[in-house]
């Protein structure tokens, strides 16, 4: 198969294309199990294979994909035709940053292939969790598992040949209860990763899930009898269960270079960040350092090599509050440097990814992490907080089209008064403006508070692509934030 692909790469290149690449998926398997109130509502698996072709011609992209490889030549020709048509409307001819032509392999760290685990064992785990969640006050209980295993072979006209075998495991528990007014309140636990863990079936640790099942039931029941969140300004202390989403929405998406350059304007939106901002914009307080780290071993945001054939990197995005980097691929860094009339980006950041063989790669987050700080544990931060609220769990999120402002709802809030946690509140929300919010970052928890949360459903692009990625985040405190609206 690879031999045929390489022949066509050469043929299309010889016919005048600037660049051609192919992503062949010998297979991508998925398995999803959902137990809802004791019923195994979903027990579904899938398998797909196919080929996606990308052709660059006269500064424009064409793409074509099919699961039918019996007429591979026609598929390459179609992608080439699509590029020829696109070349009729070019304003900034696509150029690709230099890269090494790599011959490489990547396998995500996994001890036990989740697809080798018998269905009965998976169902038994879910049944066990369902029983643990089936407690007083719980109206709805859900436990689920999602497994992905994909084999990707990448080749391009510059001589790259990269093979990847990626395994991902996701799992969560959720309970919902009804308060005295009949309003529903949920509490959720999602598999997060700590320390030097791996990404296979072994990452679903029964003990950890059991403890968290007990915890979320207890906390949900506390919410059911709690008062509403007050409407006022407070310090908000974000636990990783919401800190990851704050980072995702207002640092991650805001710093995707294709958004900054206007490539998502008709759909996902733009960014308040401009090319002039790199190197000078005070994005956050001096306590904020953020990075796009594709080298974390235990996260779905690490994949070895991106779909441009560039090795994953660990790129600083924000250095002690100053914006210095972005989430980048080969095309966008060239365009940004030319438009900025200076070299902002020294090559691709290795972040160009496609969600499947039938989608074209675009800039996607890897692991957008916040570096741990020196303000100690959660308890240490609470102890020095005069009037605050601890927030955890994502309930709703909505962000302005240029990522300039946001509104988040969380599952639970604990009010803090004079260094003490006083009581739980229900329906907590907070809102803010991105730059003002990050500049109000006053405390950053240490390594003990840092964990890698995953996102298995990040949507972007047209046609839409759902991507998996991660966020390593500590507990953080932000001051003078509006809550309760």
């Amino acid at each position, binding site marked *: 198969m690879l031999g045929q692909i390489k022949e066509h790469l050469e043929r299309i290149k010889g016919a005048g294309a600037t660049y051609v690449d192919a992503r062949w998926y010998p297979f991508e398997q998925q398995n999803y199990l959902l137990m809802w109130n004791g019923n195994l509502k979903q027990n579904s698996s899938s*398998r797909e294979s196919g080929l996606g072709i990308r052709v660059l011609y006269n500064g424009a992209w064409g793409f074509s994909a099919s699961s039918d490889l019996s007429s591979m030549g026609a598929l390459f020709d179609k992608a080439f035709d699509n590029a020829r048509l696109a070349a009729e409307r070019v304003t900034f001819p696509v150029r690709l940053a230099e890269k090494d032509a790599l011959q490489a392999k990547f396998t995500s760290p996994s001890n036990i292939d989740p697809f080798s685990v018998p269905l009965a064992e998976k169902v038994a785990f879910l049944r066990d969790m369902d029983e643990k969640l089936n407690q007083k006050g719980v109206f709805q209980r859900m436990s689920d598992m999602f497994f992905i295993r994909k084999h990707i072979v990448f080749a391009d006209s510059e001589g790259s040949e990269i093979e990847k075998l990626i395994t991902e495991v996701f799992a969560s528990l959720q309970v919902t209860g009804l308060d005295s007014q009949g309003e529903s309140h949920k509490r959720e636990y999602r598999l997060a990763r700590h320390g030097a863990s791996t990404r296979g079936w072994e990452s679903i640790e029964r003990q950890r899930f059991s403890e968290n099942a007990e915890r979320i039931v207890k906390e949900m029941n506390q919410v059911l009898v709690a008062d509403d969140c007050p409407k006022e300004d407070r310090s908000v202390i974000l636990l990783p269960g919401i800190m990851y989403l704050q980072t995702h929405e207002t640092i991650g998406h805001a710093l995707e270079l294709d958004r900054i350059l206007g490539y998502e304007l008709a759909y996902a939106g733009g960014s308040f960040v401009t090319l002039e901002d790199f190197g000078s914009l005070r994005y956050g307080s001096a306590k904020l350092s953020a990075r796009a780290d594709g080298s974390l071993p235990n996260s779905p945001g690490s994949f070895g090599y991106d779909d441009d054939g560039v090795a994953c990197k660990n790129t600083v995005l924000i250095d002690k509050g100053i914006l210095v980097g972005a989430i980048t691929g080969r095309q966008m860094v060239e365009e940004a440097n030319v438009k900025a009339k200076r070299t902002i980006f020294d090559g691709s950041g290795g972040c160009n990814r496609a969600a499947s063989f039938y989608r074209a790669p675009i800039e996607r987050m890897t692991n957008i992490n916040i570096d741990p700080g020196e303000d100690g544990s959660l308890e240490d931060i609470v102890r020095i907080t005069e009037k605050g609220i601890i927030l955890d769990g994502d309930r709703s999120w909505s962000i302005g089209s240029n990522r300039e402002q946001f*509104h988040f709802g969380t599952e639970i809030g604990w009010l803090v008064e004079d260094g003490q946690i006083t009581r739980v509140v229900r329906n907590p929300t907070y809102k803010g403006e991105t730059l003002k919010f990050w500049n109000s970052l006053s405390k950053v928890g240490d390594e003990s508070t840092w964990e890698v949360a995953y996102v298995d459903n990040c949507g972007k692009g047209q046609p839409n692509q759902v991507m998996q990625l991660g966020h390593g985040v500590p507990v953080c405190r932000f001051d003078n934030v509006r809550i309760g609206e």
Partner: protein
Amino acid sequence: MKDRIVHTLQELRRYALSKDCEVALSYHEEDSYLIRFANSAISLNTNEHLIRLEITAYADKRRASYALITNLDEIDEMKRGIDTAVDMAAHTQPLAYQPTIPLFSETFIDEDGYDPDLAQISNTRRLEYFNQAVRGLENDQIRLSGIFSSGANTLAMINTRSEHFQYFKTSDAQVTAVLSHERLKWEVSAEGSAQNVSELEPARLRSELRFLLERYQNDAAQQLPLGKYDIVFGPAATADMISFMNWIGFNGGLMKRGFSFLSEEQVGEKVFSAKFTLLDDPDRPETFPFKRDFTGMERRPFPLFQRGVFQGFVWSQDDADEFSAPPSGHTVSHKSLVLQGGEAPVSALEELVRMPRENDLLYIPFLHYMNIVNPSKGIITASSRFGALLLKKDGTVAIPYNVRLTQSLLDIFGDRMAWLSKSCVPYNTSQSYEKRNPTAVIVPVFMRVNDLEISHSNASY
């Protein structure tokens, strides 16, 4: 092609019967084309031809599904898929209720929504459409973004309970054209939806874009003070809010799970404004309708709200099985929602701007990134985008920076509703996640709601 698809499904059915298995087979084929524009260029020109087969196997109360992307030559692979699904069902946990296996009492074929001219519209014609829609409107600062998404969608289904099958084939196009100011970062848009090629209207898009551009280039921009406004929503905003009621409104299964602002006690009660009449109407071709649901049930116009009175919940077959409710013909991948128009004789933005008004009106055509803050209270939040206008009572127009609304649908569609325009349009709500699934909601061109709170107001574009 239809014969080949049906023949393949029948062969797979025979295979399952030969193994004494209970299976339902669902075939999905898409031929998708999408040109994406950004920075006044074509940023991506793509097509995908994909065939998916989803196999659901049943063993009394046990159920499992296996899906594969395949092609019609791979009959052995499909048979192996059946084996896999059957094996999964055999080893899974039984449900607490009896799942219904569809029984098609007759073969049903619907190709009324398929227009080969639209399904196979050429690259050149799609580019020409866009060139016409924005002719003379772009310059060094005003840049074009958008999509022209078109294609054909084929669904076919059969199961071991009968030899009859269902077959649906549609064509569709979704067009979005955005003109944005490169430096100032404002954006205006115009959109289109088509089920056949005659519904493509580049001249209408150009007219709408030209009007908004003129306003955005000539009228003063301002930050709106926080507070209450009388808001006129455009079709995109209204359709988005209506679509959210699929989740937190009239969905019976989600209501039973505590995820709705409506309750069973409210059936027959007045919930919304008397101006609000919403139905699921599969007789409207603009909505890419299913006239049978995926269990074979005939779909007829289904009233959801009649003059504000809630008529009842919709039930998919699986929810109906679990909660012992009557299935309502809603085992479909999308409904055909129609919000009926009102009496206001205004059908275009120019007319709205010219209308005499007793106080300021905030026009919000599009709501960006809507999410559910509190499902039990129907509270949603979202920001304005794509061409909002402040229509001042003195007849002048200002350009408001984007604002955020956090409000209950009960308020928006309740007694604060002032009027709906008589004229209605289909608004294309298709998403291209996963399988192609063209959808549209028919809504009044404008909907005015008074006294809605703006909870955040941007200080710039």
